[in-house]
């Protein structure tokens, strides 16, 4: 066990509201707590109320982590030609991946992850290999004032294809910090699909950061669902390094109570003929607070880029709020970039129309919410995952 007394004395200062990137996501309360990592053996089972496979019916390979420690007995690793999948701690020195992203050098959160790094997934898909089932990483936070620092690495070689699901949960009464990083590099003509779901009880400060590097003609498709979480910050950074890449990244968040959800995305087009499509939708209930910040860079050499960004938010209750900010920086002249960002309320005309046919207000709102989320959720590759996410949203919001 490591008590993180030195946590706030890292080389980089913790973010404050003075920094634009953190202005609406203060972490002062976290900084006042004393956290420890938990390296105890998993002896008394995984969790009382959360199954190792959180998605009923989803047939997936599985890597289970409890407070950052890999649990081999609950995991089911793929054994297939051309697929290397194992906990990072078991990778030999010569195969160890070289993490390339600079997040740990520039951000306090990233530096913490590097300093206290625990375990994670190492996944390599060889040339032209398509893995038959998704790989599910399930991270459970269980306990008081627990900090965990997973770090995952994914490499898809030319023509390969894989679907990775990162699911984080936390048992009731848990508290602390989840600080996870996933780094992926996608070779020419290969495909990575990534679904990230946060469904945490308790009071966890959840920081997760994905760094994706795309090479020529590769495809990346990501969905980020914040289903439940006390304080969640999703950071996604995609760098298109070769021509003709395709990046699709969608997200949905429906915080309630006094939850906080922050989505920061960066799409960096550095090469020609790339396309990107981003759609984030949020409904803010209760006194929840939200942040959306979507940056799109089109560098001077990234001619014929076609970038699309849309962020649509509904503030459902009087006490809720969201700060939304699209940022486009375009340095090439032959590009197509469309973006839209709105904050509004439920469409009262649509609501009345539904009610005038006998559908009560609650059911009418549920229909409108389902319609609102459809564009985000319908693209999730796995039906079981789609249904599970909708099921949790439905139960949570009592539709």
């Amino acid at each position, binding site marked *: 066990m490591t008590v993180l007394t030195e946590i706030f004395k890292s080389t980089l200062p913790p973010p404050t509201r003075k920094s634009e990137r953190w202005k609406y996501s203060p972490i002062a309360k976290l900084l006042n707590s004393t956290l420890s990592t938990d390296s105890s053996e998993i002896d008394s089972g995984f969790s009382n109320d959360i199954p190792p496979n959180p998605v009923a019916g989803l047939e997936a390979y599985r890597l289970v982590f409890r407070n950052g420690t890999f649990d081999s007995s609950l995991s089911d690793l793929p054994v297939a030609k051309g697929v290397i999948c194992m906990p990072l701690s078991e990778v030999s020195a010569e195969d160890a991946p070289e993490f390339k992203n600079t997040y740990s050098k520039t951000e306090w959160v990233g530096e913490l992850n590097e300093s206290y790094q625990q375990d994670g997934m190492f996944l390599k898909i060889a040339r032209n290999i398509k893995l038959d089932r998704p790989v599910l990483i399930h991270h459970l936070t269980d306990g008081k004032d627990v900090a965990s620092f997973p770090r995952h690495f994914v490499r898809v070689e030319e023509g390969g294809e894989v679907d990775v699901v990162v699911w984080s949960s936390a048992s009731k009464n848990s508290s602390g910090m989840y600080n996870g990083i996933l780094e992926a590099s996608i070779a020419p003509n290969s495909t990575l699909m990534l679904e990230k779901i946060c469904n945490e009880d308790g009071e966890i400060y959840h920081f997760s950061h994905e760094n994706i590097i795309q090479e020529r003609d590769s495809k990346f498709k990501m969905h980020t669902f914040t289903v439940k979480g006390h304080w969640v910050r999703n950071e996604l950074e995609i760098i298109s390094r070769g021509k003709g890449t395709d990046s699709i990244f969608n997200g949905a968040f429906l915080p309630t109570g006094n939850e906080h959800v922050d989505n920061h995305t960066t799409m960096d087009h550095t090469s020609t003929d790339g396309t990107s499509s981003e759609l984030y939708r949020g409904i803010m209930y209760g006194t929840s607070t939200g942040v959306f910040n979507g940056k799109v860079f089109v560098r001077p050499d990234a001619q014929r880029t076609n970038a699309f960004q849309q962020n649509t938010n509904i503030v459902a209750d009087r006490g809720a709020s969201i700060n939304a900010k699209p940022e486009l920086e375009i340095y090439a002249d032959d590009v197509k970039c469309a973006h839209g960002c709105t904050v509004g309320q439920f469409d009262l005309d649509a609501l009345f129309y539904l009610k005038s046919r006998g559908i009560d207000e609650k059911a009418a709102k549920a229909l409108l919410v389902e*319609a609102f989320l459809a564009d985000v959720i319908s693209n999730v590759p796995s039906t079981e995952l789609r249904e599970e996410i909708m099921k949790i949203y439905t139960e949570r919001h009592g539709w």
Partner: protein
Amino acid sequence: MLKIKNLHAKVGDNEILKGLNLDVKPGEIHAIMGPNGSGKSTLAAVLAGREAYEVTDGMVELDGTDLLDLEASDRAREGVFLAFQYPIEIPGVSNLNFMKAAVNAKRAHQGQPPIKAKDFLAKVKECSSLVELDGRLSERSVNEGFSGGEKKRNEIFQMAILEPKLCILDETDSGLDIDALRVVSKGVNAMRSPDRAFIVITHYQRLLDHIIPDFVHVLSNGIIVKSGGKELALELEAKGYDWIKEEQNA
């Protein structure tokens, strides 16, 4: 069936209905005509339960039930249907799911189990052919990308599915070409029955060539100023509304 007594309603500070009385019996068709701004659409909205309209006085009863006490959805379950002048587009909600939810809401209200999928589809088929609504339209998102005529036909389609007691048609003829007008009227006429009543709000006599009313009322400045048989509509078409105003002032 429907009794409206001394109905007063306002939007914001603007009083629009100023003591309206109307009595509608089962099987009857009442046409309501009147100049722009006389309160016709307000009457429709107030009956359907639109929240922006505040009823300040009077009563509305449907078969003895006080409608003004009910939410819009409960009024619909009691059998009130409003065919909108401007039907709303709802992207992402399929027309069929919408209708199924509506049918089942009404059935639950009446203590019946949800409709069987087979029965529902048969009903959809029957009702869409009644208004010549392309089967594909019933599967699309509610009114999204529908032409003006398709939207109005979709209103009558929904009316046919829900089988209301009281149908209120708010300028259903506006924006319709002659063929669509004929189709919509055919749908309405097919639904005429001794237990069902219609309130048809329109500016033009031509709709009443197709849907023949039992009574025609002229609404002006928030009250019904003249009532008559179907020939009143012809007279209005020929002479406009000024003579009624003069008659009032005399």
